[in-house]
């Protein structure tokens, strides 16, 4: 075990996966010489010459080229420098990466990873703090992963790189250097599509992913109720059985989502619970989310991000419902 930040853990996953599989290549803006603006790809160019590429500034072509590379037998890992610039590659993700297998009836496949620093909380400039995971989760054929801690990030990135399908890997930039954790040195992959129960409890289920696991755990820790905390790990495909199993036990659910309230991942979770778990629910599903407004700049960002206090109040409301 070594104590690591999420940045270091992701870097370690890269080193292992690139050593393990020579089809893995890395491309993106400033990922080579500079090691990525957050240093996730630091040192890879030196270790793996000819497999790490500083590209021109063009998100559409970075992702579009990754589609072609993947179809032609490589395992490209593309970096989009910030969440807000991923939208420039939306067409390639939606129209091609996510449906290549289906539209060619399996003749061509798209085993690529697109990584991007995601979500807010670091007082960044405009378009650097977006939480649009629901928009991507809505695309059939795309796997959407959001790790929450360093050791999770390492295992999930390894799994993403090994995945036969396109994976959008969204890294909570607030967590990048904020949390240090013991991370296993050896290679390991955490299965995609499986959530994890971080903390067991019997009164209420608190569901979070990415950076929101922090306020979720804080609120659970401070609560007088027995909270079961679930980390989704993979936003899509959603691990519905894990959520259902927990809510069958607790009867109450609180979803903590950093993105806007409406049409979010929380809405999907609430719908799944209504469809498959209605008889177990003892209270309406509580959603702690941002309001339906564009991500504010630094001075008002605090109003936008769900806090442990707001999660705590939602737990109280869920428990008070009779």
């Amino acid at each position, binding site marked *: 075990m070594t104590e690591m930040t999420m940045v270091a853990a992701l870097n370690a996953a890269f080193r292992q996966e690139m050593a393990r599989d020579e089809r893995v290549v890395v491309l993106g803006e400033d990922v080579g010489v500079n090691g990525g603006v957050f240093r996730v790809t630091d040192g890879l160019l030196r270790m793996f010459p000819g497999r790490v590429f500083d590209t021109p500034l063009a998100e559409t072509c970075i992702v579009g080229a990754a589609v072609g590379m993947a179809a032609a037998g490589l395992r490209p890992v593309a970096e989009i420098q910030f969440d807000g610039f991923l939208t420039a590659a939306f067409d390639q993700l939606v129209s091609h990466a996510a449906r290549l297998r289906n539209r060619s009836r399996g003749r061509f496949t798209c085993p690529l990873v697109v990584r991007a620093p995601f979500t807010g909380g670091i007082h960044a400039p405009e378009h650097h703090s977006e939480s649009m995971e629901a928009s991507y989760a809505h695309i059939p054929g795309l796997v959407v992963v959001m790790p929450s801690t360093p050791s999770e990030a390492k295992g999930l990135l390894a799994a993403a790189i090994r995945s036969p399908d396109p994976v959008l890997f969204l890294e909570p930039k607030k967590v990048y250097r904020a949390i240090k954790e013991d991370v296993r040195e050896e290679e390991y992959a955490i299965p995609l599509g499986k959530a994890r129960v971080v903390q067991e409890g019997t009164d209420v289920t608190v569901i979070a992913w990415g950076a929101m696991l922090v306020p979720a755990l804080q609120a659970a820790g401070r609560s007088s109720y027995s909270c079961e905390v679930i980390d989704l790990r993979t936003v899509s495909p959603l691990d519905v059985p894990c959520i259902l199993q927990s809510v069958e036990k607790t009867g109450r659910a609180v979803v903590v989502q950093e993105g806007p309230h409406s049409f979010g991942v929380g809405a999907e979770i609430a719908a799944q619970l209504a469809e498959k778990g209605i008889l177990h629910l003892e209270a309406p599903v509580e959603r702690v989310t941002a309001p339906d407004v564009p991500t504010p700049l630094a001075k*008002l960002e605090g109003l936008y991000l769900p806090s442990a206090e707001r999660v705590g109040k939602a737990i109280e409301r869920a428990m008070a419902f009779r």
Partner: protein
Amino acid sequence: MPRAVLGTFAVEWLQVLDERGKADPGLLPPLGEREVKDLYELMAISRVFDEQCLTLQREGRLGTYAAVRGQEAAQVGSAYALQQQDWLFPSFRENAALIARHQPLEMLMAYWAGDERGQQVPASLNNFPVAIPVGTQAPHAVGAAWAFQIRKEKAAALVYFGDGATSKGDVLEAMNFAGVFKLPVVFFCQNNQWAISLPAGKQTAAQTLAQKAIAFGFPGIRVDGNDVFAVYLATHDALERARSGEGPTFIEAFTYRVEHHTTSDDSSRYRAKAEVDLWRAKDPLLRLEAWMEGKGFLDKAYRETVWAEARKRVQEAVEKMEQLPPPKPGDIFDYVFAQLPPHLQEQKASLLRELGGQGGQA
């Protein structure tokens, strides 16, 4: 004849002031002493503003900041050629251009301090908000220019972007529209030779950026971006061409990003200090000063007044920015739509209720 040359193309280079501040008299733009002094004063205040912002950022009073240093001639020289009715479309590094276009200094600072009110551009100024997603402003400039053309207005759009942006589809698509519809737009590309860590030579295999215009059917020119007269001349002529219906122009202002990309960047990881020092010495302010001295436009008293005045105005701006009352929490809702829809009314009320006493006024 099965093989023939269908066209040959040349790319023009324009420099009026050489590196020591000697002018080519045949090329000097028709600017009087007062106008040259305007350019100098605007470059000076931009320099002081830039240095102040870097200091404020280090002290935690400003967020991430993208410095202008070294690009003052490119930005001031071009924006100074605009007329009141023209529109300016900036990227994120255009503080000097915006200063030359009368954007209040405290608003520029407020935006970089994380306050949306910094983008509430006064109604009298046709300056578009800063575009952070690289190159995305180019189609907007094309659209505005199209509107001028449709309404038969004698106005032009001037859009700023960097060498990196020339790799974006947005910019190339915008150039194509501009050529096809012969729009009154000027593409002003500051080739500061770096896009974060990527040198311009790895951004494109083309010898110049100016030549990209040729492919879209309109003129492109490379000018010395550290020469305020060359920049002014080229932009002035391009804007005139645009306003008189002759179509778009692409100007590549060849300059250098002397500072780190932004305050979050460490450029020592990817470029040599010697290169930076070389360009730091090619300071566009020094070049203009040398020429002004030769003309007798720059005595000691005038120079001292200019810099003292610049420092005073920037200091006042810092105070104004820091004395702004904090933005209202309700602001995050009030500008999303023309009218607050019911679900947002509910979300706003609930947020204000939650805030209760602590700054909860709408």
